[in-house]
């Protein structure tokens, strides 16, 4: 892949040399200002959470916590059942991610490498479900959950989120990229189709599965709308819901405590960002024609 930036300037006359350096400097300056606007609020959040509440609204704002003070973090644990919230979020997010990886791998493989009647039509239906906004299905799903006696449970958040159109689409793409000869070879060796999938294709598809898992984690860790509807009692709240309710309880009295909670909720996302950024970017932009 050649980037525009990698190209060698063949027709650059020597005279414009100086001018171009200026243009690079100008661009970097603009990009730096944009980065400050993007990262500034996050740094301010971090540094405010590490200052005593009395200094919450210090102006000019400090972006670097010079005398870190963890009192607000202790307060969060006192005022909010943060351990419970984190456990709920982790359980919900983890099970959805694993569930999506398993079901998407199976369905993606069938769409890529197995033949059956109505394959094309069925795949089109799967893709079409991606176009349906969640708000349209939420009322009937809520009724259904209530009907089977699962309302206000974590399962109400987990089960409906497991079938994934986008994950199926991604895994189909990934499996199509693996040669069909592998299956033929496995069949000649006497492997059953299931065995072929499990021992040959699934291990090779791990990078694709990682993308599905990371996307699921990122989306559901941050999810607010469904938990707001499906959970009623505080012991079933997930992290974003707990933080919003904490903010309500405290008004704007002790913002460093609220922000400490916000920072804690960012940590897992940050870990994913550090180690899975590439996968996350690929996954987010997958299937957009590029």
């Amino acid at each position, binding site marked *: 892949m050649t980037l525009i930036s990698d190209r060698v300037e*063949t027709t650059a006359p020597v005279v414009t040399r100086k001018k171009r350096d200026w243009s690079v400097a100008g661009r970097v300056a603009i990009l730096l200002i944009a980065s400050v606007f993007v990262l500034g609020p996050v740094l301010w959040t971090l540094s405010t959470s590490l200052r005593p509440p009395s200094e919450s609204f210090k102006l000019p704002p400090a972006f670097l916590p010079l005398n870190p003070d963890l009192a607000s973090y202790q307060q969060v644990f006192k005022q909010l059942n943060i351990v419970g919230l984190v456990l709920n979020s982790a359980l919900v997010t983890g099970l959805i991610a694993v569930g999506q990886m398993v079901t998407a791998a199976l369905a993606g493989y069938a769409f*890529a*490498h197995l033949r059956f009647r109505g394959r*094309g039509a*069925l795949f089109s239906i*799967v893709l079409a479900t991606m176009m349906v906004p*969640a708000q349209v299905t939420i009322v009937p799903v809520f009724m259904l959950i209530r009907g089977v006696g699962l309302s206000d449970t974590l399962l109400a958040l987990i089960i409906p989120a497991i079938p994934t159109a986008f994950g199926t689409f991604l895994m189909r793409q990934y499996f199509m990229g693996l040669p069909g*000869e592998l299956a033929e070879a496995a069949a000649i060796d006497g492997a059953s189709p299931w065995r072929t999938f499990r021992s040959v294709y699934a291990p090779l598809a791990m990078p694709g599965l990682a993308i599905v898992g990371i996307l699921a984690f990122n989306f559901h860790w941050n999810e607010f709308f469904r938990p707001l509807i499906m959970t009623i009692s505080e012991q079933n709240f997930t992290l974003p819901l707990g933080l919003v309710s904490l903010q309500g309880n405290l008004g704007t009295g002790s913002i460093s405590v609220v922000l400490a909670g916000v920072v804690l909720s960012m940590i897992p*996302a940050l870990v994913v960002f550090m180690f899975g950024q590439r996968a996350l970017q690929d996954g987010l932009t997958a299937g*957009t024609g590029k």
Partner: protein
Amino acid sequence: MSTATSTPTGTGKQPGSRQATHKHSQPSKRGRVQQRWLPWAFLAPTIVGMGIFTLLPIVASVALAFFRWDIISAPTFVGFDNFAEVVQDPTVRVSFLNTIVFVIVAVALQLGLALGLAIMVQEKLPAWLRVFFRSAFFFPLILSAASVSIFMRYLFNEQFGVVNWLLSLVGVPAVPWLTTPGGSAAVVILVYVWQNFGFSFLLFVGGLASIPVETYEAASIDGATGWRKHFYVTLPLLSPTTLVASVMAIINALQVFDQPYVLTRGGPGDSTRTAVMVIFESAFQRLEFGQASAIGVILTLIIMAITAAQFRLSKRFVFYQ
């Protein structure tokens, strides 16, 4: 789930049949039978799950829009009453109008910002800087909209907020961000764009990277420089990406909920109430599930119409190589 009712499938007639066939060299009887139900076993979790949690709810939602139902008593059929009431309800009207204004302003800002920054990042830059900027602009996407809205509320605080302090440095008097209709709408838009422009940015970066270098070489031989080069080369060649980015941005913006809910609860008045917020309120606060479904159906139809229109329009303006 019916399985073995179909006749043994022949070969061919599969769209895109560049896949393996699992054809054993001498298919045993067992092998063939397995062939027939096996794909369905693989598909079952996804297909059944989607049937229960997506397809069935769509049908139910459309049906529910014609009933009055508060869960407590039995549902009664009311024909188009829900739609009639919803269309005349001032709150619903205002929130749809808000949503449309929000979509226009937020998407324009998001795409403009994303495109400008993507062009700057993809031009000549030291590699480490490019990586840094890309990560920085992508970063807000990993945060939860609820958390972001929480800390942004403090930043936009009228007396002590950092935003007004920054503005005071350049001589702008304190802006009543969260207490006035206009200010609240601006905050919701700014916070939303701050968090989401990185997604469009990534799409544009991908699109720019796929434009062949030779095109630019040819353009510069023809004497195109600077902004001209971008206007006559980049924009036309990027139009497929622009289409995808704008369709996705509009679909997402139409469904905005988290930011206005946490930042303003739809206020002051109804100034930042959005379409999805009204669905949420009528269903889960007023228990008017029929009306909520009717609003949901209307929103979906709008989304489908806009998407279709965009693809229709794009036939005229999008340039495919």
